[in-house]
């Protein structure tokens, strides 16, 4: 259903909060992680951490929390940004609900998946 009009209160503020929290997390944590795992280790600039070392790290509750936050919040950040890229960039406002469901549904799915993987590991 259409959830917004100019007079009714909307839940846009909530999504905006998720967006900005995710933006901070993405800005601070992702560059170093992507640099190390995506470039420095595969290219041999730095020694690859061993499987055992990574497992000991991942098994600690704090690292799990860290990884969960690093996955979940930036996903909602993306969902928000991508939604407005589609709205403004490509001007596909008539697909409002589809885009909304696709973006936040994807973010939610990723969050659940991250939680599941970190729980099981």
């Amino acid at each position: 259903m259409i959830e917004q009009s100019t007079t009714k209160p909307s839940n846009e503020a909530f999504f905006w909060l998720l967006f900005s929290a995710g933006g901070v997390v993405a800005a601070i944590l992702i560059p170093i992680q992507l640099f190390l795992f995506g470039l420095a280790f595969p290219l041999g600039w730095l020694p690859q951490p061993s499987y055992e070392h990574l497992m000991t790290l991942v098994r600690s509750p704090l690292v799990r929390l860290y990884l969960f936050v690093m996955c979940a919040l930036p996903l909602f950040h993306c969902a928000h940004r991508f939604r407005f890229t589609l709205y403004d960039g490509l001007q596909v406002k008539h697909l409002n609900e589809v885009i909304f469901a696709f973006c936040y549904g994807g973010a939610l799915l990723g969050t659940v998946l991250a939680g599941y993987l970190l729980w099981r590991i």
Partner: protein
Amino acid sequence: MTETITDQAARTEFHPRWYRERVSTWWWLGEWHYLKFILRELSSISVAWFVGLTLFQLRALSHGPETYARFTDRLQSPVMLALNAIAFCFVLFHAITWFNLAPRAMPVRMGGKRVPEFLVAAPNYALWIVVSAFVGWLLLRTP
């Protein structure tokens, strides 16, 4: 290209329908400021890419050393390296624009004067460096 939007007769949330000039879909290509805005928005795809990669990494880790070795091998392929290099540029772009945005979103005043923007943004960069160094140390130290 001046035409009123009259193609949709059904009333939507956007009514009443004002007269609006139609903007080209490629409005952001003409000017550097607009292009920068769209590039910043597109950085979200790189962030999503990274999270996806992390999820695959976690899955590989949970499947054991052989699966994880296969995962790291795959990251060494030229395609993955190229994609990660592009994603890294976008993520850096996001980080820098985000840190520089903070003083605009929250202007700090001291003694009636506005604190210079770079001073407000500086703690962000400091935190960024400290956190990055810590993550690097955690991963690289020999247990």
